[in-house]
């Protein structure tokens, strides 16, 4: 059978029916960042449930949502609210997301610093990085400033 003949027959069978893959793929790529975070949270929930031999229904009951809602969450495709995350954390007695230390440590690579002008604020101190400045020295200085400030804060608290 000739190639053209085969393709023509195949296209007749398909008759304009199109997969929704492209649309879904575009959505996944557009929302990749939050979907990755959602997946990591979902995985932690599932591993915790497995560890404690706890059912999804029990978790649903604990946070006051339907089992269908939990089913969506554990697939890692839900854009979760902080409220929902906190409720799940409470029922599972585990942390699902962690925020780094309260003072800001900005770690910039040398390449990034060369191409950008970056300003970092820590309380009342502002440290500016200018294009092409040697980043490591400034970076360390800021860390020392930040750490010293934190130590000073602790000393003042203890004294009070």
């Amino acid at each position, binding site marked *: 059978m000739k190639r053209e003949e085969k393709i023509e027959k195949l296209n007749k069978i398909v008759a304009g029916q199109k997969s929704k893959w492209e649309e879904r793929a575009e959505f996944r*790529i557009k929302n990749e960042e939050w979907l990755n975070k959602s997946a990591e949270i979902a*995985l932690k929930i599932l*591993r915790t449930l497995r560890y404690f031999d706890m059912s999804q229904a029990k978790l649903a009951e604990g946070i006051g949502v339907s089992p269908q809602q939990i089913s969506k969450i554990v697939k890692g495709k839900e854009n979760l609210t902080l409220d929902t995350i906190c409720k799940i954390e409470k029922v599972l007695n585990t942390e699902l997301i962690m925020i780094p230390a309260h003072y800001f440590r900005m770690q910039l690579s040398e390449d990034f610093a060369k191409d950008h002008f970056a300003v970092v604020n820590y309380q009342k101190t502002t440290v500016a990085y200018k294009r092409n400045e040697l980043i490591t020295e400034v970076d360390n200085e800021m860390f020392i400033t930040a750490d010293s400030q934190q130590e000073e804060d602790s000393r003042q608290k203890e004294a009070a």
Partner: protein
Amino acid sequence: MKIVNIFADFLYSVKFCNNEEDEFQRLFELWQDVEFLEKFFEENKNDLQNGFYGSISVDEAVIRTKNEATRLEKKLLKIFKQKKAGEKISLDEMFQPLDYTQCIEDTLSKTKVKGNLNKSWLRIYAIKVDRNYYIVTGGAIKLTAKMAEREHTANELKKLDKCRDFLKELGIFDAQGLLVEL
């Protein structure tokens, strides 16, 4: 069984009557479904930790699969856009014969596409209709050397055969055939 179009007239997918999604779409949904992946790797922990891929934790395997599926999906989407823009794209470079004793030039052959990583366990299976024309029949996370060793991969072999028989019944193809893997 139905056949639907994925890329403008050169990549197709099988759609089984009991599924809402065609096989190609279903695969990428599954490979992003954390609940499915966690359960799958728990059930296949022995293959995951004692086999070809060394010792990988379930957590690591889930994230690795998800990331690899994203990379593969981006690659396919890029090809799709290049094709739409009128560039000459060859799918023949992506698809490999499923059985290396087969000649890739054979029509209706079984083929496969592998994930992007060197030791990738992601597989997309397809029937080669002709040069640059493929019909995806399914896919799998392949943790063993041979497809027949595990039920889920053995089932993919059955789907390839089913699709080839379906095409023959419709009188589209010659008796010769080739199955391929992406």
